[in-house]
């Protein structure tokens, strides 16, 4: 039976985990490879690294992190952040990433999604969508695409954009609600459901998880096939296993392999 995925996400800057990971006794709480190994052992279904390194010179550090992770962890790994060219994708995949997530480069140039999917296959091209609810005078609210961590409005409708990138070859959508990100109030369920129901590819819900019921809601109400969370796992509030056990009790099919 096919299972729902629980995906921890690590923000990495200059080769270090931002704010660190404190859920288990790590020698170095800031080492992304150690954190990855711990999540692998804990039964995470996938792992996502988001590279928030600002300078171009330090981007090579991430490739080394990916390479060392792939040597130690035999689990699926997605890497995003600063992916702008087909060459960026090539070096990440060759370093051991299984999927690459594209964000603003797809907003500014949609054809990039097509070029990437044609070259490496739709299965490894994730398009990350950051969406925010926008009030429209005289009309109904809608969700629009924002870039640069939610600061830059684009005026692009999120549902139309999702359909467009999927038609161009995105094999998965990583959907983050910029309204909910960091709030611990749960996923934006109407947004998640609107996107998930309008594209044929898997949608991963992200942004706002504060408790384990939120993970259940993301799948049941949001129709996501996977749920991504960061802080509830990193700071030891809940283990991956506790999250999965909770989801099993709620009736969701989960992978509990030792």
């Amino acid at each position, binding site marked *: *039976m*096919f*299972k*729902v*995925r629980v995906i921890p996400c690590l923000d990495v800057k200059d080769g270090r985990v931002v704010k660190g990971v404190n859920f288990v006794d790590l020698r170095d709480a800031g080492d992304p490879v150690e954190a990855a190994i711990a999540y*692998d052992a804990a039964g995470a*279904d996938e792992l996502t690294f988001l590279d928030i390194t600002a300078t171009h010179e330090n981007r090579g550090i991430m490739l080394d992190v990916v*390479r060392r992770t*792939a*040597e130690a962890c*035999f*689990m*699926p790994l997605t890497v995003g952040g600063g992916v702008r060219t087909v060459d960026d994708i090539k070096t990440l*995949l*060759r*370093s*051991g990433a*299984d*999927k690459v997530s594209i964000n603003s480069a797809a907003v500014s140039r949609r054809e990039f999604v097509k070029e990437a999917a*044609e*070259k*490496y*296959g*739709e*299965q*490894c091209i994730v398009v990350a969508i950051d969406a925010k609810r926008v009030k429209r005078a005289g009309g109904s609210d809608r969700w629009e695409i924002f870039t640069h961590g939610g600061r830059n409005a684009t005026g692009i409708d999120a549902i139309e954009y999702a359909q467009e990138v999927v038609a161009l070859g995105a*094999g*998965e959508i990583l959907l983050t609600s910029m309204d909910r990100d960091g709030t611990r109030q749960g996923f934006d369920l109407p947004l998640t459901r609107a996107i998930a129901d309008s594209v*044929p*590819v*898997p*949608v991963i819900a992200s942004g706002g998880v504060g408790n384990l019921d939120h993970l259940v809601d993301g799948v049941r109400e949001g*129709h996501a*096939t*996977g749920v991504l969370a960061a802080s509830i796992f990193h700071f030891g509030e809940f283990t991956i296993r506790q999250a999965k056990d909770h989801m099993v009790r709620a009736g969701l099919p989960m*992978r509990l*392999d*030792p």
Partner: protein
Amino acid sequence: MTVAIIDYGSGNLHSAAKAFERAARSMEDPQAIKVTRDPDAVYRADCIVLPGVGAFADCRRGVDAVDGMLEALTEAVRVKARPFFGICVGMQLMATRGKEHVITEGFNWIGGDVEKIEPRDVSLKVPHMGWNTLDMVREHPVLERLPLGPKGRHAYFVHSYHLNAANEADVLARADYGGPVTAIVGKDTAIGTQFHPEKSQRFGLALIANFLKWKP
């Protein structure tokens, strides 16, 4: 003993090599894992691994682009009867034809076409991306002691096409995704998995170890 992992530019080469190295280390008689694009090394190897991700036609072009590789591979597997392990598109290439976007010839080691999966339940997403259990169709040494079935372990899949085998005898295991999906094929000294053993944690490493122990 040497295991040749064919390097023809496939994205999962690094992960596959590392997983085979890890599995080999756990064995009594560790085998040397060699990543190579030298047809002669493939011809001389004791067993051969063909990784593969991306589109069928693109992977086929990749194999053809290495001068003499297909001949060496065919000779080693089909004539010298060396054990062979195809992963994902590496497995799909064992089929007669691929029908992803365009019709492309496969190696025709296993009769059948590689076709789009079409789950009966329309709420199921394509690609089939994530963890699924496996149902055994036929016993095989590479499946020995692996916990299969609905309560068994999971394998990691990422694909939109699968090998629709013409002969039931060539299918070792299936997954269910709104209908049957071919998960493992096996014929003579060749096996192939649609899922990624190199990404399937302990279950994947156990399968690779079984393959390395296999003396067909």
